[in-house]
């Protein structure tokens, strides 16, 4: 399988704080890569760099083999190909669920209203929110809003989907429905990078797991191997703490 997205020596600094300190990753088509690690380890910043919401200070990002992010890059074109979903769903409160999903396809991809509507209805049907198409986001539960945010990103038919701790702001009862959606995407072969605190999800669904600490990838590997016999002491320490907290 070909490499969909890769980074080489990616560095990002905020002031004199180095948030990403030489990140090398390789994501193959249809692969699900989980990023785990404590708060402030750089997971979110990495994702935000990958669709150029942040500008890296050094290193290269290769999308389908072509470097992106240099001067003169069409940021909007990259973002149409690399979708991102945030922790705080950030739905547009003044638009209905349907219009939230169709806004970017109509205005960024140039689809007709009818085509975009068709795409949106297909997604709403698939993820079981068809009856809420004409509701405003405020009347939806957190889990439903987050699923709409996922559909909004999917409606652009991105090559790669970045999920930035999308269950972290949800009630525990609502986490499950969003995890189910993520599982379905993985089964459908969507290429994804998932920053998550849900270790169970990382272990069961991801093809590979990368553990980040202080802006570096400490260890990356097969989830069964990484969760059962981590090689690096930092990974062991992190997993021990997660286990103690009852999150694994």
């Amino acid at each position, binding site marked *: 399988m070909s490499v969909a997205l890769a980074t080489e020596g990616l560095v990002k600094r905020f002031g004199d704080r180095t948030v990403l300190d030489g990140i090398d990753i390789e994501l193959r088509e249809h692969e699900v890569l989980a990023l785990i690690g404590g708060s402030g380890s750089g997971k979110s910043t990495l994702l935000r760099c990958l669709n150029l919401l942040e500008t890296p200070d050094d290193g290269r990002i290769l999308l389908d083999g072509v470097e992106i992010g240099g001067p003169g890059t069409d940021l909007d074109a990259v*973002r*149409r190909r690399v979708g991102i979903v945030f922790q705080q769903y950030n739905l547009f*409160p003044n638009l209905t669920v349907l219009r939230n999903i169709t*806004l970017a396809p109509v205005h960024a991809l140039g689809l007709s209203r009818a085509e975009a509507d068709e795409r949106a209805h297909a997604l709403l049907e698939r993820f079981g929110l068809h009856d809420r198409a004409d509701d405003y986001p405020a009347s939806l539960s957190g889990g439903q809003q987050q699923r709409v945010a996922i559909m909004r990103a999917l409606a652009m038919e991105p090559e790669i989907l970045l999920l930035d701790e999308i269950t972290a702001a949800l009630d525990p009862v609502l986490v499950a429905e969003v995890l189910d959606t993520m599982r379905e995407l993985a089964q459908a072969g969507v290429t994804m990078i998932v920053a998550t605190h849900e270790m169970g999800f990382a272990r069961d669904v991801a093809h590979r797991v990368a553990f980040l600490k202080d802006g570096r990838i400490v260890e990356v590997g097969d989830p069964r191997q990484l969760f059962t016999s981590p090689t690096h002491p930092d990974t062991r320490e992190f997993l021990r703490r997660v286990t103690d907290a009852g999150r694994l």
Partner: protein
Amino acid sequence: MDDLKGHRRSLIVSSLFAERTGTRGAIVGTIATIAVLVLVGWLITRSSGWQVVQDQFLNWDVFSDSFPGIAGAFLTNVIIFLSAEAIVLVFGLLLALMRSLRAPIFFPLRAFSVIYCDVFRGIPAILLIYLLGFGAPALQVTGIPRSPLFWGIVALSLTWSAYVAEVYRAGMDAVPPTQEAAARALGLNRRQAMRLVVLPQAVRHVIPPLLNDFIGLQKDTALIAVLGVVEALRQAQLDSAATFNFTPYVAAAVMFLLITIPLTRFTDWMISRDRRRRLGVAR
């Protein structure tokens, strides 16, 4: 002490409750209002100068004679405020957008917007009306209109655009930056994000304060009387001079209220509807 507090709280609670419970609350409210009105009315009509005031300010004959003329003159006020409001809506938005530009190359536009708002919010509207209304035609430049009505509209538009620009700006600031980020992350460019995501939400936030400013603008149309434009106030002055009676001013005041009170009510209704929608109560 605790008892007292508890008692006070229960009073507050019960009064709030009465406001919500239908008939009993309504009866109490009506009786209280009538009692106050009767008392105030009694005090005023008992005062020694009442006869004179009634004759000078509330003279029915003068009122019914002057009201049609004043209502006709009020059409001029309507023309003034509708024109000024149309200009203010667009120009105020332009000023706010100029101020929101971030790139260094746009510094001159940003500076213009800041200075403009400082200057035109700082000059009393009536002064600007004098300066433009008498000054601009005096230039005698061909092509520049000399009608005081025109310059009155310009002066009001300049003044109120500065206020409305600030209202727009506050509205845009009230839209969380994450909204723009979400739009940009979907591949919309900055202009699209502004036009499709930020502005529609900003406008929704600003409609109540905007209508509030329009109420102010509509009252300010009376200031154009100083240029000799025969609008409601000027007509009232003429009638008053002709009849030696102040009742025409009351008639003009009534005319303004007929326009501003519905607008005020409408604004309040918009605010509460908007709040319901944001909280997700209404469909």
